[in-house]
């Protein structure tokens, strides 16, 4: 469940905080979902970690303990064996001497010991002696002690006696190896052989028989001092089991303390590792885990004040954390700003591209207009419009909106649309600007404004009715180029009741006008020079049509930039009076009637029809001359597909012939006049009247045959 802790944000902050709000929601959600997971994971990691580091240490320790114990044991055995060996060697010699004493006295008569397997002069031991030797055996820790004669030829041992340290065993031995037993050995130990030859050799053999495993030593025993050849062998055997047992015991004795010490060391070491290494590592790890939990950087430092390697890691982590936060903060700001700005600009661009065509040409019915816009990289806010409205007149608009971005683009769209609508409905230029201004003032929270120049051009007469709202004055192009000087007006969108007024000028045939924005005059070259107005006038000299004029300016400005970046939109619109073929400016003088008649005759010849038309025109013209107080009359006569269109424009006082239909006068009073308009009205098929600027414009249409003489 997402909780929104912020209160309703202000509209302009929405974009900025939405990311934050999103990330906060994310964090809470993530915490909930991942909470359970992370804990389990951490626990798992805990176990794993302990196993991997400390266990490893422990295993190494234990292995080394085992190795040391085993080595101890081995060393012990060797040592023990050596010890026993040396001791036994000494002991066997001692016993040999004692046995020697036993036998050295009381030798019986000589004989051939070989002839009789039972050596008669080697009597068996008395019980008393046996017991004594048994006790000796015990105290010397031998298992067996035995005396024998070695029959090397036959590889036999002829036992005189065998005693052991154990009484029970002695009984057994008495049965198994009584005096005179001959035992055959496949292999006689070296020490025995040596001993039988009188040599004392400090080697022992290993014997494995039904009595157990033993080590044996041998020593010669002199039985007759007078005859060194009379030798017996004394053998002693040491129980290997016993040896092993003793070795084991002594090794235990040594190793137990060692093991204990080692284990204590291990525990201490583990504890130290845990405290000095594992705990800090875990702290770092925990910090890392929660570093960017839920999309929000926690930003806390470890601040572990240690001088060792762990401290280094902690410090590195802190530094990295600081760096990341700084970096993110920068990116965040930059990105949001950049993205916002870029997006705004992109949208603004699209809007403007959609609304303002790169080029617009109208060439029809005597209209010659050519408009173009080359936008700057960062859209500047220029716009234009050029269209023929219902009454056949050409509307030309040029504007420049302040500011950049989406709001400026939208303001531009609204302004252009409003202007077009109002113009299309037949409003005069001033009316259009004043009403548009009032509307824009009411819906313009950002205080944007636009300078606008607009005009309505009547092609048949060349009359241009125009109004200006603070825009750069257009250029009039005739045999000379000069600036039109409209009233400055005020940019729309600033104050209500702008009070802009209509003005009129007449473009004669071949004359034109060029509208532009300050993107032309304020273009800058690499040396910081302005394009300026003089240059504009100059470049337009000699232009004979709209395309020529517009392109001349465009090329001139673009080459003026000379590699420097175009920083403002380049927008021009040119319109020329090219269609008023027969338009003539005549004086408001009856004499001028001939000109009118000539024009009509030259268009459709002299015939009944043309005389009728002339009649209608005469009536109108006379009216103008008599009543209008005009000093300029523009007359145009154009043949259009079965119609003859005649236009009369006079700059006299406002007079609408349609409104002033004479009432029926008595016949006798007709000598004073009053028939003219009536005649005109009856002859012309269509009559249209409009007041344009300071002109009355009357358009008469007459039906003429398709192919006339």
């Amino acid at each position, binding site marked *: 469940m997402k909780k929104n802790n912020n209160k309703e944000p202000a509209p302009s902050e929405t974009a900025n905080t939405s990311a934050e709000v999103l990330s906060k929601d994310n964090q809470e959600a993530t915490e909930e979902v991942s909470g359970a997971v992370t804990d389990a994971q951490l626990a798992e990691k805990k176990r794993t970690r302990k196993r991997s580091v400390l266990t490893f240490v422990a295993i190494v320790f234990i292995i080394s303990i085992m190795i040391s114990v085993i080595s101890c044991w081995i060393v012990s055995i060797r040592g023990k064996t050596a010890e026993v060996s040396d001791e036994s060697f000494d002991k066997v010699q001692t016993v040999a001497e004692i046995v020697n004493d036993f036998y050295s006295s009381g030798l019986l008569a000589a004989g051939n010991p070989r002839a009789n397997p039972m050596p008669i002069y080697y009597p068996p031991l008395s019980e008393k002696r046996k017991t004594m030797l048994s006790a000796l055996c015990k105290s010397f820790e031998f298992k067996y002690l035995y005396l024998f004669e070695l029959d090397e030829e036959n590889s036999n041992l002829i036992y005189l006696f065998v005693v052991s340290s154990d009484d029970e065993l002695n009984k057994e031995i008495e049965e198994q190896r009584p005096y005179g037993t001959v035992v055959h050995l496949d292999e006689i130990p070296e020490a025995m052989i040596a001993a039988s030859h009188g040599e004392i050799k400090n080697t022992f053999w290993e014997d494995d028989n039904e009595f157990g495993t033993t080590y044996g030593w041998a020593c010669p025993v002199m039985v007759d001092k007078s005859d060194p050849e009379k030798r017996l062998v004394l053998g002693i055997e040491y129980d290997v089991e016993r040896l092993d047992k003793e070795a084991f015991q002594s090794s235990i004795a040594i190793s137990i303390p060692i093991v204990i010490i080692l284990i204590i060391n291990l525990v201490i070491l583990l504890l130290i590792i845990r405290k000095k290494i594992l705990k800090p590592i875990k702290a770092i790890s925990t910090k890392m885990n929660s570093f960017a939990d839920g999309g929000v950087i926690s930003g806390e430092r470890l601040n572990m004040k240690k001088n060792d390697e762990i401290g280094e890691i902690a410090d590195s982590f802190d530094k990295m954390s600081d760096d990341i936060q700084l970096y993110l903060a920068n990116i965040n700001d930059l990105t949001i700003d950049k993205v916002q700005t870029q997006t705004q600009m992109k949208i603004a661009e699209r809007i403007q591209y959609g609304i303002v065509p790169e080029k617009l040409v109208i060439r029809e019915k005597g209209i010659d207009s050519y408009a173009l816009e080359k936008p700057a990289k960062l859209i500047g806010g220029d716009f234009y419009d050029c269209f023929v409205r219902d009454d056949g007149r050409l509307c030309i608009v040029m504007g420049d909106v302040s500011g950049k971005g989406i709001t400026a683009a939208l303001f531009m769209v609204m302004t252009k649309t409003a202007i077009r609508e109002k113009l299309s409905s037949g409003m005069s230029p001033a009316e259009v600007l004043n009403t548009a201004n009032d509307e824009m003032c009411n819906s313009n929270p950002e205080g944007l404004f636009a300078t606008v120049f607009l005009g309505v051009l009547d092609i048949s007469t060349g009359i241009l009715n125009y109004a200006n709202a603070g825009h750069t004055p257009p250029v009039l192009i005739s045999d000379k180029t000069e600036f039109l000087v409209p009233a400055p007006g005020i940019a729309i969108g600033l104050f209500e009741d702008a009070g802009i007024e209509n003005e009129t000028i007449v473009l004669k045939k071949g004359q034109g006008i060029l509208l532009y924005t300050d993107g032309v005059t304020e273009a800058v070259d690499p040396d910081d020079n302005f394009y300026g107005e003089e240059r504009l006038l100059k470049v337009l000299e000699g232009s004979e049509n709209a395309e020529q004029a517009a392109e001349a300016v465009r090329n001139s400005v673009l080459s003026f930039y000379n590699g420097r970046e175009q920083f403002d939109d380049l927008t021009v619109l040119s319109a020329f009076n090219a269609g008023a073929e027969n338009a003539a400016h005549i004086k408001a003088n009856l004499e001028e009637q001939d000109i009118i008649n000539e024009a009509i005759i030259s268009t459709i010849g002299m015939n009944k029809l043309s005389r009728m038309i002339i009649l209608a025109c*005469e009536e109108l013209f006379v009216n103008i001359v008599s009543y209008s107080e005009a000093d300029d009359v523009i007359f145009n006569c154009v043949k259009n597909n079965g119609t003859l269109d005649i236009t009369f424009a006079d700059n006299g006082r406002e007079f609408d012939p349609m409104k002033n239909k004479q009432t029926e006068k008595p016949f*006798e009073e007709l000598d004073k006049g009053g028939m003219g308009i009536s*005649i005109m009205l009856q*002859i012309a098929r269509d009559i249209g009247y409009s007041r344009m600027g300071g002109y009355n414009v009357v358009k008469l249409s007459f039906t003429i045959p398709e192919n006339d003489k």
Partner: protein
Amino acid sequence: MNIEKTVNGSTATVALEGWLDTKTAPDLGKAIGELPPEVNELTLDLAKLEYVSSAGLRQIVAIHKKMNKFIIKNVSSEIMEVFKMTGFDRRLNIQ
């Protein structure tokens, strides 16, 4: 415009040739004014009149008011149309 006057006592005939428009209408007026005062019957011959405008019509009305008897003859169909437009055909003696 050519004006041919033929006076016979109190009867006069005026023949017009050409265009009777705003420019030439005053000439007609002048010509009528130059007639002897005893003339009170006028025949206007428009056989050769090609064109008449309201200025001319005004002169015609003036003649009509001045004369006792006023006949307009040889009116072409074109001129007749103009008379009809202005109701002259009903008020004038057109032959």
